[in-house]
């Protein structure tokens, strides 16, 4: 840790698809809590986690809140460093422009480097 780092570098790593369990929401709630406490929060969506970012979600039949509403709040809280895993998008046939948020798409190597740089990682 350097003296000129005012806030902790925390990465929220989202690896789970939304709605099947609470993990996706739990992750975003943690990210927002981090932002409220003035931390440097970054989000990484990998594997099935990229499915959280699909556009035009309709969760009403699941009696669940649409996670897109929660994701849209991220920028308001100052969280705009959002990464996605290129291979995850490719394997699922999702073009980056079809996502509900603007993200920086990473190769697996770059993803490894990103994880390496973090002070702490919360995996969901």
């Amino acid at each position, binding site marked *: 840790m350097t003296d000129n780092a005012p806030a902790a570098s*925390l990465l929220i790593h989202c690896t789970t698809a939304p709605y099947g369990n609470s993990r996706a929401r739990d992750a975003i709630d943690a990210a927002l*809590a981090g932002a409220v406490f003035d931390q440097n929060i970054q989000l990484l969506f990998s594997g099935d986690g990229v499915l959280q970012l699909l556009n035009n979600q309709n969760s009403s039949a699941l009696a669940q809140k649409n996670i897109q509403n929660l994701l849209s709040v991220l920028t308001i809280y100052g969280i705009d460093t959002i990464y996605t895993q290129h291979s995850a998008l490719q394997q699922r046939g999702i073009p980056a422009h079809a996502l509900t948020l603007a993200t920086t798409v990473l190769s697996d190597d770059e993803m490894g480097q990103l994880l390496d740089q973090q002070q702490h990682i919360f995996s969901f």
Partner: protein
Amino acid sequence: MKFTLAIYGAPASSQSAYTALQFARALVAQGHTIYRLFFYADGIHNSSLLATPPQDEINLPEQWQQFISDHQLDAVVCIAAALRRGVLDQTEAARYDKPVANMRDNFELSGLGQLIEAAVNSDRVITFGN
């Protein structure tokens, strides 16, 4: 080193809760400091007063409570996650007009901010997931 443990798995449903306790015990035995235990999502069930496993199985909430008490640890249960899942302390049971409180002593309900604060003040954050 100072550790924070984030526990997301429930007793009986997931092995991660027991792994977390064993890891916590090992940390203490090795002379490390546990800054905070944070129970989130299904992990809140580790604070349950009413969980009643069979006699030949361990009672994880009871063991957690003992461990927390023995070492005077800060054990926080995420209030939003706990309320949703039905584990309430006396205050919340009264607030929501419930007939009973079912959270063990030595655990404290609080917000996600406590998880963030713990991360900022710890050398290591270890997550015990599914």
